[in-house]
């Protein structure tokens, strides 16, 4: 979550690209940036890559 410097409004809602949770300040330590997207954790990066692999294989 990106709040305005005065803390009175939200500038942008920062969500994990895979699981969709809001990433607040406390969650920043675990967050990972990849391909210009933010993820709440390495787990979500790995899950998304694995899912893409599985679905591509199933489509072949």
């Amino acid at each position, binding site marked *: *979550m990106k709040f305005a410097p005065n803390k009175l409004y939200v500038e942008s*809602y920062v*969500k994990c690209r*895979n699981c*969709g949770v*809001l990433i607040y*300040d*406390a969650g920043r330590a675990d967050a990972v940036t990849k391909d210009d997207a933010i993820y709440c954790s390495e787990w*979500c990066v790995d*899950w998304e890559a694995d899912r893409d692999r599985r679905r591509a294989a199933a489509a072949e």
Partner: protein
Amino acid sequence: MDMVSLNIAGGILVSICRDMGVTLMRTSYSTIFSESLDFTCGLALPSGELVATGDFCPSMIGGMPLLLRSCVQEIDLAELEEGDVILHNDPYRGGLHTPEHTFFKPVFVDGALIGFSVAIGHICEVGGMAPAGFAGEATEVFHEGLRVPPVKIKRAGKDVDDVWRLLLANVRTPRYNYGDFRAMIAAVDLGERRMADLARKHGIESFREHVAALMDYSERRMRAEIAQIPDGRYTFEDYMEDDGITADAYKIRVEVVVEGDGLIVDYHGSSPQARGPINATLGVAWGAAYNAILQLTDASIPKNSGCFRPIRVLAPPGTVVNVDFPGPSVGGNTETHCRIANTVMGALAPGLRDRSAATDGASHSNFLFGGTDRRTGEFFCCYDLTPVGWGGRSFADGNDAVGGINGNCPHIPVEVFEFRYPWHVEEFRLVDGTGGPGQFRGGLSMSKTVRCTDTEMTFSYMSDRQKLSPWGIHGGQDGGRAELFIKRAGSEDWLTITQAFNKPSPSKFANVPIHPGDTIRITSPAGGGWGPVEKRDEASVREDLLDGFITPEQAVEIYGLRP
């Protein structure tokens, strides 16, 4: 910790939540609380983890953990004072949709914060483009009423009058909203007192130990249940038939991955977010997954954050299951929640055959209206829900005409409805032949015909299942679809809303004018059937025929009954 004291502690916590709910019901002004019980109450830890909840509205039970988790990250806990009450309804910060207002009050014992007392409920009128909310044609959250980030509505026991003034200036029914807010505050006041009394009586450390043990126990019980499901990947799809703006359907896709004693619910592959108000918030996406798993597992597992620990939910942002700002979402909590929950249940049906069920009608046929009272000059609003048929199960037919699986909300009794609002109820009945055929038949739907007596009103609606039928499972057949018709005063023609008002959707629209003598007929969707019709025993078919639950034609043509 011994099971006896653990169960006593759990029972006391749940009974506090139930008493909070009864307080809310008895002190509220609006029928959505006093008759339809569209709320729930809970107790939580300072971390936001849910400790106990009353068994009122399932969508809110599953929605509370994320909502509390979001709020505690925005509140400075060190700044909280005894007697504070915080209000929140923001759909993008853990909320479910703008009408769902959450009040939570910190609970202190000897100066230490031990948790929160929480009441969440559907406030009937929230401003926005349509009286009583649920603007079926909303295309942004600003059409759906006032959005409230976590703010203090009471500070150290005193009303924050400026916040009250701001809230009540933005709705059509300020006196009712004031009364309903007070009812919710009465509920959290009671929860605060009882929770603090409990901790004082047994000591804070003992209280914390029991609560931690209770959540661990729930987690163990849930893991044991999940471990019974064969490992694997289970998928299912269903659709929302339109979004109120265009005729396009929106896909809900779910893959449930079961690994040992945990499971992952992945919605990746669901449609991009809709322009209209059918989008689910993240809170709804979590709540629907939790609701589905609770429907499929042992009902005696204590409902707290512990039982949700083995479940991980993945809802990609910008989709119909996780709306991004400023997308609308008011129908997501009533219509899309049940579609998602049933999709999760449908996915797991092969792995949990004995506990599986066909879908319920899975729409609340939300009936919203408002107008000016001719006697008092005061504006009134009403939100009523319509019962649906539930799905057939592995051991019994679906229930006829009960609240949908995410609401558990009774409709307003006819006597109360006619006394409070300018409608005459001409007919209210089960609809014969609508239950999905199967070895175990789907529950019947309900039809309600109401005639406006003497007041000009506006009418809005939020529903689904008029075009796409509720599905059967394991060879069971589809249940009957929903319908909505209007007959204008002086006319004999029953028209759909599209025919009468050129609305893009027959089930989602806002602000249709109603004049005295106009008549509306609402028919809810029915439940799907379970198992093939050939396996239904003949005695049940004959009994259904005698009861009028199936038609003579269905008995012969579908069930093969010989005269």
